[in-house]
């Protein structure tokens, strides 16, 4: 029984990694590629580490494999965010099928300022004060 679960976890993890690399190869632009790689690969490592924890079944090894799982869960989104951000602002092109981009109009490439797009609404709501210049 344990052997069966272990084998299923190992094969599942390996398949998720294959899926991640297939996605990396097939998807059309940087940001969609990152969707495939970070999450599928992280899930693959998590499954394999669960299998390792079940195989050894000692307190020390289980603690270590859970440490790897927590580490992957914490670092994978940070790395994805950092690379995606850098790639986007460096100017990698988006896929032609991209339906909308709400970031581009709010970003100033000269000053690197990123507005929230809510300022105009707040200005409209703001009451005039006595100290305002005419």
């Amino acid at each position, binding site marked *: 029984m344990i052997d069966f679960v272990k084998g299923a976890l190992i094969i599942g993890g390996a398949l*998720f990694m294959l*899926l991640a690399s*297939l*996605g990396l190869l*097939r*998807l*059309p*632009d940087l*940001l*969609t590629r*990152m*969707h*495939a790689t*970070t*999450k*599928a690969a*992280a*899930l693959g490592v998590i499954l394999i580490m669960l299998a390792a924890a079940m195989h050894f079944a000692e*307190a020390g090894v*289980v603690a270590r494999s859970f440490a790897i799982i927590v580490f992957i*869960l*914490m670092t*994978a*989104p*940070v790395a*994805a*965010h950092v690379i*995606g*951000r850098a790639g*986007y602002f460096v100017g990698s092109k*988006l*896929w032609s*099928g*991209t*339906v*909308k*981009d*709400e*970031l*581009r109009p*709010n970003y100033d490439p000269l000053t690197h*300022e*990123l*507005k*929230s*797009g*809510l300022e105009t609404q707040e200005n409209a709501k703001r009451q005039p004060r006595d100290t305002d210049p005419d």
Partner: protein
Amino acid sequence: MTGAIWNLLLGLAWVLLSGDFTGLNLLVGMIFGYITLVLIEPQLDSLKGYPARVPRFLGFLVFFMKELIQANLRVAFDIITPPWHMKPGVIAMPLSARTEMEITMVANLISLTPGTLSLDVSDDRKVLYIHAMFLDDEEELRRNLKEMEHRALELFR
């Protein structure tokens, strides 16, 4: 936080006293420690709110796992079949998280669910820019993201 530390200490005491050093026994000890903490909660101020937070945390874990697997399968299907079903795009999501810590947690959770990837936070920390892979139903996606943010914030506040 003190509640979690006390829970762990009670579990360790259980392991030491029973003399069986395995992970399963530690889990049993933690469960008994949790029951003890629930029982003495009304008498200690420092434990306020800890017993209620644990089931919420477990519920969040189940919700997150469900999202993770569901969305992963969707991305997998799109990668394997030749024509593209996806409609990628960048959307702006207004944040209700305020402190840096909360924003970090929410952004990480959004990045971990396949189909969404947090790109950047605006300079005034009000809007999170998210790259989404499936924008067929934008309203529903926004609702899902909001629900996840709401559940995550409930956990930390």
